[in-house]
């Protein structure tokens, strides 16, 4: 190896060292440190997830959380009861937040995505089409039939103080 090539190699090694130091400092500087640690933790997730035998459905439940699980339970309940084409009235999130903090009811379109069942909010213009109501009480899920327009009116009056929110 001649002197020029050796010098070029040495300069490359020196520049590599500079690159490593610069990247290390940058990735550990101030706000970057905590954020980059989070990105690095994705690697741990990857290793764990690669080994796991979770089904697609279990992964969905893990990622989409309680609102997906509740929606799924609703679907299973209706399938078990052989009820065709129900339309579910969902409690307002401001109410659910008060009674079951940490859980959110999905919007009608997301509920349909998860279940294939139509849903409504208490402020939906076609709320009178609701056939059932889904209630979350003391950590339990309860589905009741809305027997008459009068019963629906009563339900809507009850939820009136609770505005809808995402």
């Amino acid at each position, binding site marked *: 190896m001649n002197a020029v090539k050796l010098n070029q190699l040495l300069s490359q090694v020196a520049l*590599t060292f500079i*690159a490593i130091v610069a990247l290390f400092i940058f990735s550990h500087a101030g706000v970057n440190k905590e954020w980059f640690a989070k990105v690095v933790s994705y690697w741990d997730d990857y290793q764990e997830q690669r080994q796991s035998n979770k089904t697609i459905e279990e992964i969905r439940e893990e990622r989409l959380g309680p609102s997906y699980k509740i929606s799924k339970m609703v679907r299973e309940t209706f399938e078990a009861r052989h009820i065709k084409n129900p339309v579910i009235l969902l409690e307002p999130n401001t109410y659910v937040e008060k009674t079951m903090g940490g859980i959110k009811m999905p919007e009608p379109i997301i509920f349909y995505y998860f279940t294939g069942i139509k849903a409504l909010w208490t402020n939906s213009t076609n709320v009178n089409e609701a056939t059932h109501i889904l209630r979350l009480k003391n950590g339990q899920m309860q589905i009741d039939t809305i027997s008459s327009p009068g019963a629906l009116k009563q339900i809507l009056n009850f939820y009136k103080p609770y505005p809808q929110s995402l």
Partner: protein
Amino acid sequence: MNHLIILIGLATLHFLTGYGILNLFTIKLKLLPRIALAIITGILVASMVPFLLQLFYIPITISTVFGTLGMLTCLLNIKTAIGLRKVRPRLTFRPRLKLYELPAILLIGFMLFVGAWRCFYYPQYTRDGNSGPEPIAAYAIREHTLINSVFSTNLESTNNQYKSPFLTDLQIIYQYAGFPFGSMWLPLLVLCFYIFLYHALSEKLHPLISGLLLVFFIFTPEAYAYTFLCLFDYTNMALLFLGFYFLFRFFRTRQLNEFYFSALLMSFSVYVRSETLLLIAMATPMMLYSAYRSKEKAGKVLLHIAAFMLICTIAYFLPVQLYNNYYLPKGLAVDSMLNKNITNLSPFFNRLSDMTSILMFGPQGKILWGYFLLIFMIFLVAELIFKRNLDKEARNWLIAILIIYTGLALLGFLFPLITLQDTTKRGLFKLLPLMLLFVANTRLLAKLSERIRKWEGIV
């Protein structure tokens, strides 16, 4: 392993589609950025296929989608095939990767990989995705139409069903191909975008600096999150940047093929996010000024600019005006969303002020963009202080930054539904690659690169 093979297959298909387009426009690039750009272009063409089928009321099935895509790829490559007969291509690839490029490349590769894995492993869970494109895609696969039973549900809580079919279409294609959650087009697009950016940076800078700058760009937490959260904004950012890149290339070369390729890329960005049309319209004075400087005939120039805008307007008209209003059960009246009190300009200045003080340079700014905006500001100020004036190319990028910056505030003013913390925040992504290219075109970094090159050669 199976999924990796499928992904390679789809990437090849996208490459072939895009390669045909690059050949049609006779775009000359080095091999790697050429492949990257071809794949990006191919992904965008694919993202229009189920939508086009829907426009003609053709059922969306695995065979119609891939059949149309294959046919389009063949049609787009007629010129390529003719060219192959005349001249056999010499596929020589001499990798010139230097040791000092590896640290940045490995870091970027790592960040890309973990993001790609999340994209593969998890279903999408953004509210904007799940209340529009995701359910429409899921039911389109079952019901073979984009106008499916999702539209029979109560949609009063969302307007995401009116957003571009871009996302829905790609989710359909990738789920048909065998991906459980269909989002793997995104990491593919991001990888290609990084490759292209690295190439664009290395055109002027020493690769060591290019690598570091690209890492600075990727270390923007908010934008990085959208490399695995499937929404519209990251793709929109990449396409608008590529549009500007070829527009500025045209400013140098005056080659019309580059001008119209820029129009195509910008029309793709309009297809992905319709409001981008306004930002592109705001760039037309730049085009006029460039033509004025090169002393071209006014009539001809105006005609080309009109054609440029027409291409972009078609990409707006098809999904927003035609599809939303004449195909979907309930149309979307864009004018009903317009600000009614247009004479009161205070919301414009308020938005500009909030963008700057809250989203960009306030405490939230650091969480969203890391140190990237600070780096940009340092280079801007340093360039103005030490070099006094800006390089022509840097000036172009700076003007593009100003267009997007004021354009986002203007959009917030015109459409009050565009919220600061959602649409405007994600709209700021569009500034990032422009800022990156501005920094790359500063005389300070050009000088530093020159010094490193000299030192590298003579130590």
